C-alpha cells in the first residue's frame, strides 16, 4: 500500500508547489515593494515639511526615534477670499484633537464697513463665534451652531500639507503611491465624517505637497470637491522652527475660486491654541439642530 515515490513524482510536486507559490511570492514582493515605497515617500514628504523631529538635549543614554512634531499652528495671510479681493485670513489649527478656527476680515464692502467672521470646528462640532472664544463665559459673545458646515470646515484641516501627510500615514495600506507626469502622487481616503472623500496629493521635486485634490462619489458632498495649490515654501515664523509652510495658497471649491492668499506669518511652534466647545453647541449637536 505504500506509495512509490519516484524522481518524476518529486519533480511534479515541485512544479505544482512552484506554480502555487509563485503568484503568492510575486504578490508578497509587490506588497512589500508598495509598502516600502509608501513608507519612503511619506517619510520624504514629512521630512520635507520638517515634521519628523527628535532632540537629544539632556537625554543621556536615551535616543528616541523621530516623531511627528506638528500639532498646533497659527497662520496669518492676506489676499482674495471668495469675492473679497482685500481680505485678512487668520487660521488657528490643531491636529490633536482636530480643530480649526478661521477668522476672515473682508474689507472694502459697499458700505465701507469690514465684514468679520469666525468659523470654528472641533471634531464633530462646528460653530460660528461673534468673537474669539464666544459662548464660553456668560455674557461674552455668541456661539452659533453650524453643524451643516462641519465636514467642509474639517476638510480644510486635512488638505493642508501637514494634514495630507498625517492622514496618508493614518490611512495605512489604503494609501497608494504612484507617478504621474514624472511627479509623485499620493492617494488615500479620509476617515470619520469625511470617509466619503478621497485625497490626491502631488509632490514637487523637493517632496513638498504642491497640489491637493479632493473627490467624492457622493453627490451630496460636492462642496467637498476642492483643488488647492501650495507654493513658495519657507519657514515663515518669527520664531524659527524648521517647519516649512506654503507662502502662497490657491484653492478652488467645486470649481469656483475660493482662496488666493499670501502667507504673512506662521507660528508653528505648537503655540497655545485651544478650541473648547461651548455648551450650547454641544446641546444643539445632541438634539440634531
Amino acid at each position: 500500500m505504500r506509495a512509490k515515490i519516484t524522481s518524476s513524482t518529486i519533480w511534479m510536486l515541485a512544479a505544482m508547489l512552484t506554480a502555487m507559490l509563485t503568484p503568492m511570492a510575486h504578490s508578497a514582493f509587490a506588497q512589500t515593494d508598495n509598502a516600502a515605497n509608501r513608507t519612503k515617500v511619506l517619510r520624504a514628504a514629512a521630512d520635507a515639511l520638517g515634521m519628523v523631529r527628535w532632540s537629544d538635549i539632556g537625554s543621556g543614554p536615551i535616543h528616541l526615534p523621530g516623531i511627528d512634531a506638528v500639532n498646533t499652528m497659527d497662520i496669518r495671510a492676506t489676499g482674495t477670499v471668495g469675492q473679497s479681493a482685500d481680505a485678512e485670513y487668520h487660521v488657528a489649527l490643531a491636529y490633536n484633537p482636530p480643530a480649526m478656527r478661521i477668522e476672515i476680515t473682508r474689507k472694502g464692502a459697499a458700505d465701507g464697513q469690514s465684514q468679520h467672521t469666525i468659523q470654528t470646528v472641533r471634531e464633530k462640532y462646528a460653530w460660528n463665534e461673534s468673537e474669539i472664544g464666544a459662548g464660553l463665559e456668560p455674557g461674552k459673545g455668541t456661539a452659533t451652531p453650524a453643524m451643516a458646515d462641519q465636514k467642509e470646515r474639517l476638510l480644510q484641516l486635512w488638505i493642508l500639507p501637514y494634514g495630507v501627510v498625517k492622514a496618508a500615514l493614518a490611512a495605512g495600506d489604503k494609501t497608494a503611491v504612484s507617478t504621474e507626469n514624472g511627479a509623485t502622487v499620493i492617494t488615500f481616503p479620509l476617515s470619520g465624517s469625511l470617509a466619503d472623500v478621497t485625497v490626491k496629493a502631488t509632490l514637487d521635486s523637493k517632496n513638498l505637497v504642491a497640489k491637493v485634490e479632493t473627490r467624492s462619489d457622493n453627490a451630496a458632498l460636492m462642496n467637498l470637491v476642492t483643488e488647492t495649490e501650495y507654493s513658495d515654501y519657507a519657514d515663515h515664523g518669527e520664531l524659527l522652527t524648521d517647519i516649512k509652510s506654503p507662502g502662497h495658497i490657491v484653492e478652488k471649491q467645486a470649481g469656483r475660486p475660493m482662496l488666493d492668499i499670501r502667507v504673512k506669518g506662521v507660528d508653528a511652534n505648537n503655540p497655545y491654541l485651544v478650541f473648547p466647545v461651548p455648551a450650547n453647541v454641544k446641546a444643539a449637536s445632541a438634539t440634531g439642530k
Partner: protein
Amino acid sequence: MRSHGHHFLVAALLCLLPAALFAQIDAEPGHALVSRTVNSAPTPSGATPRTPDGHPDLSGVWNALGDDLTGVPNQMANDGISIDSATSSHDVFNGAKIATFPRNTNRGLDTEKAERAASLLRRLGANRPIYKPEYWEMVKNLDENANEEDPSNNCLPSGIPRAGYPSFIGQTPTYFIFIYPGQGGLIATQTMYRMVPADGRKHTPLQDLDGTYTGEAIAHWDGDTLVVDSWGFDANTWFDQIGGYFHSENMHVIERFHRDGNTLTWTATVEDPDVLLEPWTTTPRVALLNPDPHAILLESQPCSERDLGHIVTKEHH
C-alpha cells in the same frame, strides 16, 4: 535524486524569500538600535513598603529616571508624549497615536536644530489648561516670548506645581519633607524645599496669607494616596515648564502621590477661577526610585543667570 533534491530546495527557498525580505523591510541598514529608545513610564516592580502606621512609605530618592526638569525625553513625557517603541508613540492625555519614524542619521543634531526640535516636542501634547478666552492671546505671547517672560529664567524658584515631583521625600507620621534640586542653564531654577504637615491641621484663611512660591501646603491620606493641598501662592511663577501658563494669587493646587512598588506617580490639579475656565490636571508623571539604598542628592548647580543678555532671537528650548 540528489541533484533533483537540490533543485527542489532552491525552488522552495526562492518561494520563501519574499517573506524574509518583508521581515527586514523596517530595519535600518548599518544602524543598530541603541538600548533605550523609549520615554514611556516605567513599569512598577517589587512590593510597596509601608511605614509602621500602615501608610505607603514614600521616602527615598526619586531620581532614577533623571530629574524631571531636565532632558527632552523627560520633558516630553511630562507633556504626555509617550514614545513606546522605535515605531509607536501616543499622547497619554487622549490616546491619540503619533506617527513615529526611525532616525535617518547617526550624527547628532547641531545645537540650533536640537533646540528648535526640543521646543516643538515639548509643546506637542494635547493636555493644555483652558484659560478664559480673554487670556488666550496673552498665554500664547508669554510662551512665544519666554526668553524674557519666563520667571524661572531669572533663577527664581519654579514654584508649584511646575516643580513636578520632588527628587527626595522624607516621611514622618506627621509631616513630609520634599526637596527639589535647582538646575543650571536656561531652565534654571533655584533649589526648593517644602515642609508639609500631615497632622490634621486646616489651611490658614487665604486672606491671612502672604503669597509665596510654594504656598501653604497641608497633607492627608486618601486611602494609599497622599494628597497635598496648597494655596497662598504669589503670582510670580508659571505652573508648567512650557506654555506661558501664568496664574493668579488665588491658585489652589491639589497634588496626589501614589507609590506602586518602585514607582511614584504624581499628578497636580490646578484650580484658578480667576484665569482658568475649568480646573486643569497635569499628565501623570512617574518617578523611579533610585535603587541605591545609599543614594543622596548632590549639591545643586548654582543658578547665576548670564545668558539672557546675549539672546537675540525669540528661539528658546
